[in-house]
Every structure is written in C-alpha cells, then in structure tokens.
C-alpha cells in the first residue's frame, strides 16, 4: 500500500521541532544548574534557563492557537481506537505542561524575588509578590510538572519507536519535512 503521507503543515512542523529542541535544552540545564555552587556561571545559567523557558511559553501559546484553528491531518485508518484516544490524551497533557511548566517557573521566580527579564531586555511583570514559602512550594510544583513532562515525553518517543519498528507505519513522517523521509 502506498498512500501519500498526510503531513502536518510547515508551521506546525517548525513549531514542533523548535519547541522539542528548546525543551531538550531547558530541561537538562534546569537539572544541572540547580546543583551548581553559587557562582557567576550559575547566575548566568539560571538566566538562560528562564529565557529559554519563556521562549517555550510563547511558542507553546502559538502552538495551541495553531492547533485550535487547524485540523491535523487525519490518522491512518489502521490505527486502533484505544491508541488514538491515548495519543490524544498524551498530546493534550503535553500542551498543558508546555504552558504550565514555564508559568510555574515564572511564578516561582516572582515569589523568590528574582524578576525575569527576557533575554535581559524585556522585563516581565512579577506575577506574585516576594514570598519565601510560596517560592519553595512553586519550586516543588515546577519539579513535579517537569517529572510528568519527562515521563510523557518518554511515552511520546516510545510511541514513535513503536510505530516505526513494530507497526512499520509512517506516523513519524507526518511530522518530518518531505526531504527528510522517503
């Protein structure tokens, strides 16, 4: 069977891969910087992490708007119903986390009294006043949401591998530009 692959459009693909790249930068950076002893490097990494995170927030909002205003290409008929349901839930949760994680980070920074200035240029308003207890709570929230993201991204990638190696269908190609796949 050789039906043409139904791809996402270029905007959707660009947003998907850009966000993926930035998450793969922000996440390890977050884990790494946390354990560094206080130094100028640590302060710089915190800033970079916050800048990348806010960029993800902006892109995630754009993605949600794109998703609401567009219908993704239909899935191949062969995919069982339960897989469709699970994938929808996973994707919905991923969108939710891509919004909630940076928001929790922004809130955390406000509560800890470290304002976020995007790329050192655009000061973001502090969403809450300085409050140590709230700051510590939000740190835990940020960590908890990130753990969920870690698990869901793991599932997301495991699903791609399953489609590729077991089902041998062309789910991955839907998100890849034409030149990059057969």
């Amino acid at each position: 069977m050789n039906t043409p692959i139904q791809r996402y459009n270029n905007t959707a693909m660009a947003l998907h891969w850009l966000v993926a790249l930035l998450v793969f930068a922000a996440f390890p950076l977050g884990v790494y910087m946390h354990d560094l002893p206080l130094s100028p490097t640590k302060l710089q990494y915190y800033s970079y992490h916050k800048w990348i995170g806010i960029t993800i927030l902006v892109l995630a909002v754009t993605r949600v708007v794109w998703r609401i205003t567009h219908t993704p290409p239909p899935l191949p008929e062969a995919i069982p119903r339960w897989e469709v349901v699970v994938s929808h839930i996973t994707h919905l949760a991923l969108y939710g986390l891509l919004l909630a994680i940076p928001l929790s980070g922004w809130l955390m920074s406000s509560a800890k009294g470290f304002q976020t200035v995007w790329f050192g240029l655009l000061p973001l308003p502090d969403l809450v006043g300085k409050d140590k207890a709230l700051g510590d709570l939000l740190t835990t929230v940020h960590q908890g949401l990130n753990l969920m993201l870690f698990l869901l991204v793991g599932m997301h990638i495991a699903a791609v591998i399953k489609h590729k190696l077991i089902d041998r269908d062309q789910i991955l190609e839907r998100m890849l530009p034409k030149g990059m796949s057969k």
Partner: protein
Amino acid sequence: MNPFIRIVLSSLALMSSVAFAVEFKQVQTNESTVTFAYKQMGVTMDGTFAKFAAQASFDPAKLAKAQARIDIDLASIDTGSSDGNDEVAGKQWFNAKAYPSAGFISTGVKALGGNRYEARGKLTIKGKTLDVIAPFTFQSTAARGVFDGSFTIRRLDYNIGEGVWADVGTVADEIQIKFHLVVNASPAKK
C-alpha cells in the same frame, strides 16, 4: 538670582531655622533602614542590612557641626536569597570574619538648597577607606527628623567580589546604597 534677594532669602531661611533650632541626635534604629540595590544579569535586586548602629547630630542651622557615623554589621545582610547571604559573607565578598563591619564617618555637610543637603565622608569596607559623597534630604517636625539619601559605590573599588565574581557582567559593579534615618530631636544646648 539677584544677589540682594538671595541675601534676604537666605537670612530668612536662617532665621526660620534658628527659630526652631534643635539638634537631631537620637537615631531611632528600629525605624531606620539601610538598603541597597544592584543589578544581576540585568535584573534589579534589592537587599537590606538588618543590623547597624548610627550616631548623628544635625542642626540645619549649624551645618558646620553636623556629624554622622554609621556602622553596619555585614553579617546581617539580606541579599534576597539565603545562598546569596552565605556567599557574600565569604572571603571573596565581604570577608565578614576578618572585616565584620562597614563604616561611614562624615567629614562635612553642605546645604544644596531647600531640604537638600550633601554629606561627605569616608566609607570603610573590607579594610579600604574611600571618600564618598551622599546627597540626602532632611525633613523634620519639631521632635523628629528624617534623613533620606543614597549614593553609589563601585564594589570593585573595595574588592567586594573577587576572583570569578570580579566579572561585572553578571553582578554589576555599581551598588546603590540607600539610607533612611529617623532621628529624634534633643533641645539644642543654649
């Protein structure tokens, strides 16, 4: 301004202050604050010194005799985070073990007009003494005077933040120090 009017005005000002001549001497430390502001990665941060001792004697009519002295307990610093507080007490920053306090001693006060003044003095931090000029305002009722002022130092002039911290791209060199001193009046000696 016409020199004549100037003389009239300044003598009027002098008379009015002489009429209320009181000396402000009793610093109310619990109502006073010493705070600072600095930039870290382009972000403005505020900090405070919780503990300091201050002595002042100030009579707007006798500026030549005005005096002020502030001693700040550096261990009482709050930079905004506990990591930060531990760090700045350390050797590369204040080296608070060897230099537990920072001190300002005035050498003179000048009137700038209105309720504005300028204090000159010597600021000692970490074993280094440099001249500073601190403009301030003074507002008073009969019993109570309030000094508000600020000045900016360059931390590297005092070797505050050595080694890796000497990089002013992360923590800026300029540190603004702000003081708000509430001083009660004691009647001037006749």
